[in-house]
């Protein structure tokens, strides 16, 4: 029992120390987390420049507040939580500008498919993958902000439900509700397109 407790404490301490070391180097932080954060933020705000700015602010805020990181969750969850809050703040303070810009760039966002690489092994495979990605993105555009965030974090970032609840600052059951509504909507959209 005592040994188990000691091992747990040691494990927690080691985890916290690793995270603290990682947080002390902002370039390492950017190298490790920027792509995933950018993918999530871009899918949320649908504006490349705005996504770059929010990701940069997320990294700087995480670096500035690194002393406050207690190691109770992973660095990824902690930083995703910061990004979620920054997206919310931005949407709240510049609501009109934000949505006008989002709608204006919706056409450009469709062009994001053009930026997507052709990863399939054959031209047909590449085309199919691109079409599937565009379908998912279009289906997510119909979701509410909370549904989209929950869906992205669960099925694109592959985070666990408690981590999503942490990042979104809401109970797990609320996250589940958003998630099920989102799945229903995406199923209807993609299933409908398939039929």
């Amino acid at each position, binding site marked *: 029992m005592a040994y188990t407790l000691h091992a747990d404490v040691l494990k927690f301490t080691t985890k916290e120390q690793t995270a603290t070391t990682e947080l002390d180097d902002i370039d390492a932080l950017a190298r490790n987390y920027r792509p995933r954060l950018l993918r999530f933020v*871009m899918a949320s705000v649908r504006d490349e420049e705005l996504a*770059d700015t929010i990701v940069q602010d997320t990294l700087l805020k995480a670096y500035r507040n690194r002393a406050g990181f207690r190691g109770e969750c992973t660095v990824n969850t902690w930083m995703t939580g910061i990004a979620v809050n920054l997206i919310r703040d931005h949407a709240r303070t510049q609501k009109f500008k934000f949505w006008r810009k989002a709608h204006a760039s919706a056409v450009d966002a469709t062009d994001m498919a053009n930026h997507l690489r052709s990863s399939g092994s054959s031209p047909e495979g590449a085309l199919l993958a691109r079409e*599937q990605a565009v379908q998912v993105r279009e289906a997510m555009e119909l979701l509410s902000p909370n549904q989209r965030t929950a869906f992205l974090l669960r099925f694109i970032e592959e985070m666990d439900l408690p981590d999503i609840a942490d990042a979104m600052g809401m109970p797990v059951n609320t996250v589940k509700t958003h998630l099920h509504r989102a799945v229903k909507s995406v199923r209807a959209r993609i299933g409908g397109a398939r039929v």
Partner: protein
Amino acid sequence: MTDEAFAELLLKPHADTHGMETAGDQQELRDLQAALGSYRRETLHWAERRSAGQPSLADKARAQQRWNALPQWALATVALVTIVGGVVHLASDRAVEPTSIAATLPAAEQPAATDDVAADNHLLSSIDAELSYHGGSPVDGLRLRDAGSAERTEVAGATD
């Protein structure tokens, strides 16, 4: 198939789909899994390429730290000045002795006070002088005494 059950199976690429009611459900699950997988790969690759072109954040972080430290320094300076000012003020208050309070009065005020006292004294002396009677009685002005002595002389002459 319910959305809850569907959501549970979505993240499991090799989920056991034998329990599913229809082949349509199995196909839908596979299609959506494939679509999500494609989206995941494509967007991550896009984000990696875009991130690779971004400049280092080290300079910005340093600049931000300096700006963040500025209000703290300003606050510390104000606190220090307040404390030093308070200490100096207290020390100067204690240095002043009660007996020397008069000496610390402004020099201009002292002659003014002396003049006032002299003026008051002069006024009181004048009133006192007016109130005190140094001359003869007002009755003397009527020469009643002369008339009286003349009458007495005439009476004495008649009796002689």
